[in-house]
């Protein structure tokens, strides 16, 4: 009745439909679509004026991106309002507030905490999911500086060392930081082409099968890229993914980086990038604060400071803030600071605690000019 071609096509369609139902029943996926595009500064940016949702078994969150590519409910003029302390925040999905509403995101909470403390403040959240320090540096130069910030809060996350290596934007040459490539736009062309296909947007926001395929492909390509670009030393970097229970336990007891990959760090590239961000921040008359994103490995309530990855002496001039102790205290009491069923970002409590710690540090150190 049907030709072989039609039969094959029908089978593929049926297999995909089957797969969709299979994933929904057997292993529902968090729907975390990424709306990013290429930017003239050679790195990714949030797609301006886009609106999308994140659905996980724990949350349903709407994301609204303004025309400047910033997750915000308003447009932010470049000119700084009189008497307002302007804070630029840079980071990845944690700083962008993945899995929480805008009102519960770190940057928003810092702004409101400071205002509540009588400090007129305004945050400009330039975070983009997947960014590392190398991209933060470019972001500050091309997108942050025009906002004339008084304070720059840059996130430091355990994924940054890998991201910095993978992006290949900078290298260490004779002990100094040097630009290596002008662009790093992973899978952006493919994404832009796919976005033109009718129904694709629906797919990325609703298909569990597509979501698991995309995530698997992303993990695979990230590993591949990392191993290609770290020239043989990727083994230990990747070891983080496969931490054994024993290693976990040792690390948990010692509150230190697991020995499996502690030897890989610190990487001079990371410290040089942070110092360069500090230098650029100073050149625009602002102050840099490095914000620790404590890690929660394998959902075991074992909390670690991402600062363990750094040679802190090499970035002695940079002020640092860490909510690690508070996270650990809550965690020890059984309070979860991360979502368990989505992608493990800070939950509302996590954002609140981190924002509170940062707000106190800003007030105590007088980093925001009144």
């Amino acid at each position, binding site marked *: 009745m049907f030709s072989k071609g039609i039969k094959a096509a029908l089978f593929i369609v*049926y297999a995909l439909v*089957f*797969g969709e139902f*299979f*994933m929904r029943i*057997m*292993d529902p996926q968090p729907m975390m679509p990424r709306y990013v595009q290429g930017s003239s500064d050679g790195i990714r940016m949030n797609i301006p004026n886009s609106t999308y949702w994140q659905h996980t078994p724990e949350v349903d969150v709407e994301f609204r991106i303004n025309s400047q590519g910033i997750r915000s409910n308003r447009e932010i003029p470049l000119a700084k309002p009189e008497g307002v302390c302007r804070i630029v925040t840079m980071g990845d999905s944690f700083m962008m507030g993945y899995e929480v509403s805008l009102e519960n995101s770190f940057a928003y909470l810092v702004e409101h905490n400071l205002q509540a403390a009588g400090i007129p403040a305004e945050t400009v959240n330039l975070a983009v999911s997947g960014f590392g320090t190398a991209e933060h540096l470019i972001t500050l130069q091309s997108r942050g500086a025009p906002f004339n910030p008084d304070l720059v809060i840059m996130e430091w996350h355990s994924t940054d060392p890998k991201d910095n290596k993978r992006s290949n934007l900078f290298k260490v040459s004779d002990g100094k930081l040097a630009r290596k490539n002008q662009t790093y736009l992973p899978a952006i062309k493919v994404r832009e082409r796919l976005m033109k296909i009718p129904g694709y947007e629906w797919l990325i926001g609703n298909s569990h099968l597509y979501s698991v395929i995309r995530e698997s492909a992303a993990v695979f390509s990230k590993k591949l890229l990392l191993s290609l670009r770290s020239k043989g030393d990727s083994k230990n970097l990747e070891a983080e993914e*496969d931490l054994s229970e024993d290693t976990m336990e040792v690390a948990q007891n010692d509150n230190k980086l697991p020995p499996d990959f502690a030897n890989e760090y610190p990487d001079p590239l990371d410290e040089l990038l942070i110092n360069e961000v500090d230098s650029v921040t100073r050149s625009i008359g602002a102050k840099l604060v490095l914000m620790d994103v404590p890690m929660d490995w394998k959902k075991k309530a074992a909390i670690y400071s991402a600062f363990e990855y750094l040679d802190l002496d090499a970035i002695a001039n940079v002020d640092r803030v860490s909510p690690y102790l508070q996270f650990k205290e809550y965690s020890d009491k059984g309070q979860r600071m991360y979502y368990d069923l989505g992608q493990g970002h800070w939950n509302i409590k996590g954002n609140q605690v981190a924002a509170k710690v940062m707000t106190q540090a800003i007030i105590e150190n007088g980093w925001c000019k009144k």
Partner: protein
Amino acid sequence: MLFQTPTFFMFFLVFILCYLATRKHLSIQNAVVLVASYIFYGAWDERFLTLIIASTATDYLAGIGASGTKISRHDLIKSTVFLIGGSLISLSFTLKDSAHFLLAVVALAALYWIVGWYQLRLDEQKRRKFFILFSLVLNLGILAVFKYFNFFAESLQDLAQGMGFELNYVTLNIVLPVGISFYTFQTISYSVDIYRGQLKPTTSMMRFAAFVSFFPQLVAGPIERAAQLLPQFYTARVMTFEKFKSGSALFAWGMFKKVFIADNIAPIADRVFADPSAFSSGELTIGLLAFTFQIYCDFSGYSDMARGLARILGFELMLNFNLPYVSRTPSEFWQRWHISLSSWLRDYLYIPLGGNRGSVVGTYRNLTLTMLLGGLWHGASWTFVLWGLFHGIILVIYRILNVDAILYGFKNRPGSHYTFSILAACIMFIFTLYGWLIFRANTMDVLVSYTMGLFSFHNMGDALNQLGQLFYYIGPLLLFQCLQLAKGKTEIFWELPKVLQINIALFVLYCIVFLQPKTAAAFIYFDF
């Protein structure tokens, strides 16, 4: 190199291309199988290839001798060249650290020539006996040194300490070579079958070496009999699309059992066995159930994958598992579980011990002893010995109660037959469960603590969540096994309606691709 990893798929792709390219030249194709098998094994630890080579060369000679034939100078040269040449290649990567290995190889080669000289003085009967002993001593010697030396040495020291003596001895820092129990049993059965006149010795070292090291079943069985597998190296294998389809389906089903079921439920068992005293009876019951299905899916999954791979290549390996958990009696269980080992133990241990030919007490003794040694085969630990003893005892009890005959008596009364069969299967399953507890407990302390926790029956409803989690993984298997049971055989996939075939295939593939743990786990039976 684990079957379920991308590395193995790459290896197999390259191998099958070479295999296909040489399909018109049997000898070359056998050589391809041999080289691939050695690469497959060497990927784990190339030094221990020496043991396989030694076992192969020894039983090549022993096979000829056990048939009563005089070993020729030509055969001696072949064995010596194979032994020394193969060992040199396998040890060449670690020559500095492997001098003792090489020395042992040279000594073995010298022994071949001494044996070759000595056998000329023996008549046919004595020569047959001499060579079967030669094979047994060499193969069991390898096993004793590499698998049991430390176990017996430590046990002796513990015993002496208990009696107030202090024994100073040296324990050897020996790594257990993967698959050693499987290939040594395979080579022993080859020589014994020849000795018994059930098989003719091969004169092709290449074929024999390929038979011993055939990579799909090298490291975890099935333990093939030479009479079944060796002739398949004599004639060109027929590879058809039907065999490819059937082999692939079998491989996928095995992989499903391994990566979707066994590897996903392993943490449930691992958790409770790590510290049984910390868990309620409910959790201990679920943990034990989890291990019961983990070990079945892990091992039978491997066997299915091995059989599937072999079928794709045009070989046929024996069925190793036949729905063991529906067994109604211990004897039925051992006809359904690890069939290649239990039939091996029956043919090469139980029957030579006298089987059931002597007195009733003698039969019970033979049963218990066979199961005891079967337990010890699994590993150098007293819990394995106890597990074997446990199965030996229940075999004897069922035999005393004549349960098999009672159940058989119901055969003509369908209603009673089904009722009593289900009841008997439930009782047997409980025995099997407890057997796995003995098997899985690393130490006697764990066994005692687990047993006490299990039978205190406190908080039995504690683990309902975990029960749900367990059934999430084993549910599809149980459903499929109901179909297998109804049809009375294991390979029923191609007999199902097309619609069911497509849906089962898609389900299995999606489970394998998306629902396997991130890290590939080794097979449990690699340790045995």
